């Protein structure tokens, strides 16, 4: 076991650190498994040789599996299956000579662990299962470790053999993840599942950025490579901050209300104002809104995609055009998902008594969330500074990288907004009528609810399911499998399960063989071997 830290490792360790602190604050401090999980991630990131890398990676998988198992046994098997699958791909890949097969195995193995389509189906099931502190670390940290493996191999270890189409593979997988992740995030009504789907989307964004950079690096285009890497790494940094925040928040909602199904929440800002504000900040990041932490990476990524569309053959160009459509659609879907989360879950009227009686989050998780939120501020307002700090990593990955300067200046925008706000505030204050009056909601003339329903009839509120239904109707039908299932589940997981079942049946038939039949197996195998031997020697 050898350890070595370079800029890339340090960056990802840096991404990991605040999440670990926040996760520990969110109640995982005394769990040994949690710390083993962290240790595994740290080992994988700091590894100097393949064995340590795979060992750390597997330790991470194993520990997180235990944590998932303690939360919910059902998705644990699927989770561990995918984890071992990724191990089965990674272990050979690290030994193969640099070449396409090694790269594809790395993408398959680490991609499965990161939740890249079409191997993302486990993620929305497994990530919500464990306690919030672990979910946070899994969504914010573990997928990053998997992406780190992809980066480490695609850009450093296998770099001499890299070809432009390698980037294409990442872009296609990433685009599919972006679309399916955003769509499912829009449709899921369970808060943590929804967040996990959004993780799939963000992993996809990072992969798209990496793919563009990898392709550009192989084509010798320094500017585009720089843009792609900036987008991917910045997205990794930002996502590593706001996603754990949201997951910890969801855990606190669970603790306070007893459920995280959006259809049973509502009006939580009243009972839990601090949590509500922090969640609002996180949601702004998730929706990639300007002045939030998530916008800068998306901004750079779109620029990179536009730049990439101007290079390569006609097929590649049309592909990148389609990619832009996908990115636009998904950005709006992510916005819808975030609005739905805040609007349905935290605003409006409580839908249950538990939601009405919710009390604010516990102190330590709140402090953890606040820490993450505070770290979001520089990413949100000073992305240029963060990018400057990322420069060594980018130069390590693509020495020729030379990205154009960032044209998104959130601080200036904030100043402009501040000026307008001051002016508008002055006008409203000077000429307007001050103060406000609380009245029953007008509600199109329906008037005040009856006294036995203090928050009105919950059924008259828009529900999370109802909010998403039109989108399911307009887009979901085309992209999802019949019945609204994830296409990867319907067209990959289900057939594989069926195949496995068939093999199991054959094995069972063999197992039920009588003694005589078992003897017959031996005998047949012996004769077959002898025949092969005779023919082999005769020939």
């Amino acid at each position, binding site marked *: 076991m050898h350890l070595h830290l370079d800029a890339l490792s340090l960056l990802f360790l840096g991404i990991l650190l605040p999440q670990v602190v926040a996760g520990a604050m969110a109640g995982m401090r005394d769990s040994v498994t949690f710390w083993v999980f962290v240790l595994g991630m740290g080992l994988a990131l700091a590894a100097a040789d393949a064995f340590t890398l795979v060992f750390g990676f597997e330790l991470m998988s194993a520990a997180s599996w235990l944590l998932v198992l303690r939360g919910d046994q059902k998705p644990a098997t699927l989770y561990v299956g995918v984890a071992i699958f990724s191990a089965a791909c990674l272990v050979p890949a690290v030994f193969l000579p640099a070449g396409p097969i090694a790269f594809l195995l790395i993408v398959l193995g680490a991609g499965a662990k990161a939740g890249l389509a079409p191997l993302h189906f486990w993620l929305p099931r497994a990530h919500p299962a464990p306690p919030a502190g672990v979910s946070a670390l899994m969504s914010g940290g573990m997928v990053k470790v998997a992406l780190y493996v992809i980066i480490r191999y695609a850009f450093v270890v296998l770099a001499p053999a890299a070809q432009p189409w390698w980037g294409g593979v990442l872009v296609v997988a990433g685009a599919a993840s972006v679309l399916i992740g955003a769509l499912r995030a829009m449709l899921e009504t369970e808060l943590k599942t929804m967040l996990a789907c959004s993780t799939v989307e963000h992993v996809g964004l990072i992969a798209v950025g990496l793919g563009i950079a990898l392709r550009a690096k192989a084509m010798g285009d320094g500017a585009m490579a720089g843009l792609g890497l900036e987008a991917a790494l910045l997205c990794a940094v930002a996502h590593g901050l706001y996603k754990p925040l949201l997951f910890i928040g969801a855990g606190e909602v669970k603790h306070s209300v007893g459920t995280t199904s959006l259809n049973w929440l*509502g*009006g939580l*800002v009243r009972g839990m*104002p601090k949590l*509500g504000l922090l969640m609002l900040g996180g949601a702004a990041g998730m929706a990639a*809104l*300007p002045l939030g932490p998530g916008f800068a990476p998306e*901004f750079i990524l*779109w*620029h990179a995609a*536009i730049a990439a*569309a*101007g290079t390569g053959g006609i097929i590649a*160009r*049309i592909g990148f*055009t389609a990619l*832009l*459509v996908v990115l*636009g*659609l998904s*950005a*709006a879907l992510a*916005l*819808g998902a975030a*609005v*739905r989360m*805040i*609007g349905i879950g*935290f*605003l*409006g*009227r409580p839908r249950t008594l538990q939601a009405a009686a919710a009390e604010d989050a516990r102190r330590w998780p709140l402090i953890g969330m606040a820490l993450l939120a505070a770290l979001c501020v520089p990413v949100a307002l000073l992305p240029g500074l963060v990018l400057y700090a990322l420069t060594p990593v980018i130069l390590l990955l693509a020495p020729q990288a030379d990205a154009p300067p960032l*044209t*998104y200046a959130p601080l200036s925008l904030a100043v*402009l*907004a501040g000026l*307008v*706000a001051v002016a*508008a505030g002055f006008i*409203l204050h000077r*000429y*307007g*009528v001050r*103060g*406000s*009056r*609380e*009245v029953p*909601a*007008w*509600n*199109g003339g*329906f008037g005040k609810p009856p006294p036995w329903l203090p928050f*009105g009839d919950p059924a008259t*509120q*828009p529900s999370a399911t*109802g909010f998403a239904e*039109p*989108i399911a109707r*307009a887009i979901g039908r085309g992209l999802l499998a019949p019945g609204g299932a994830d296409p990867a589940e319907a067209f990959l997981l289900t057939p594989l399960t069926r195949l496995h079942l068939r093999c199991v049946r054959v094995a069972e038939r063999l197992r039920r063989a009588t003694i005589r039949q078992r003897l017959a197996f031996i005998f047949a195998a012996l004769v077959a071997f002898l025949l092969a031997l005779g023919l082999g020697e005769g020939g």
Partner: protein
Amino acid sequence: MVLAFFLRLLATLLHVALTFALAPLVMGVVTTLRAWALGRRGPPVIQPYRDLYKMLRKATLVPDTATELFSAWPVACALSIAVAAMLVPGFCTGLLTAPLSDFITIMGLLALARAATMLGGLETGFGFGGAGAWREALYGVFAEGALLVVLLCFGLLAHGVTVDGIAVAFDTQHIGISVSLGFALAAMLAVALTETGRIPTDNPSGHLELAMVHEAMLLEYSGRNLLLLNYAAMLRLLLWMSLIGAIFLPFGMARATDILSWPGGLLLWLLKLAAMAVVLPLYEVSSAKMRVFRVPEFLGVAMLLGMLAGIFLFVAARIGA
């Protein structure tokens, strides 16, 4: 240098002042012309100013089911639209805000405004606001996809995606009239109609809550909150007009450092706005509002047109030309 900076500052201030001042007027013109086209007399063109003033003087009511954030959404919406309006060049290019006027930033600010409006609609937790919000979310999905792919077309032609840069490039370089730009224009118009809440996707003068999109989200707002939201809607209309004007009708735009070109630029800008303010109501009265689930198809066509624009660009191999 100092002089140039001073001129740019002046132009920026002028642009901001004009934009903020003219926004209600444009809305008034459109409304009046639309009434005329329908054979009615219509309100005077300064009616929006009166309405805004009226709202300023009215008490602000807050529903008892709303949360503390109720009044934050109008502010967020108005601020982001205002900032976006400051970024889009109006009568001249080279404003101080030009480096910030990245098309993607503007898209982001519009999305922020949209998110704030939607949250405002969901705030009180009643059906109409929610219905407006999901419709807005649905339309937004397609609109953003279409807009981003149109943007690709501009980016490839103009080698940059700041609105200012596009305007300068389209004005000075000889781009000519290409099929791609035609497709892009059609796509962008569809997005603009959706974003500003005009027919065929939404009816700004409708009064049936069940059919409303933008207005449905404002149902519970009153007083200064409503003022902010309505003013934001007016600004948004002007913003889109300026945007389309800057990109597709860039001729005659003044340069901020050249004070002599300002009057011509101003005149032309006003003319462009007027022309669009005439065309919009004429189009509106000649077509009908769509059912909700027809709108994705409408925007889907826009998206396709945007893609076609890009593909035609590739086929014509005009990149770098």
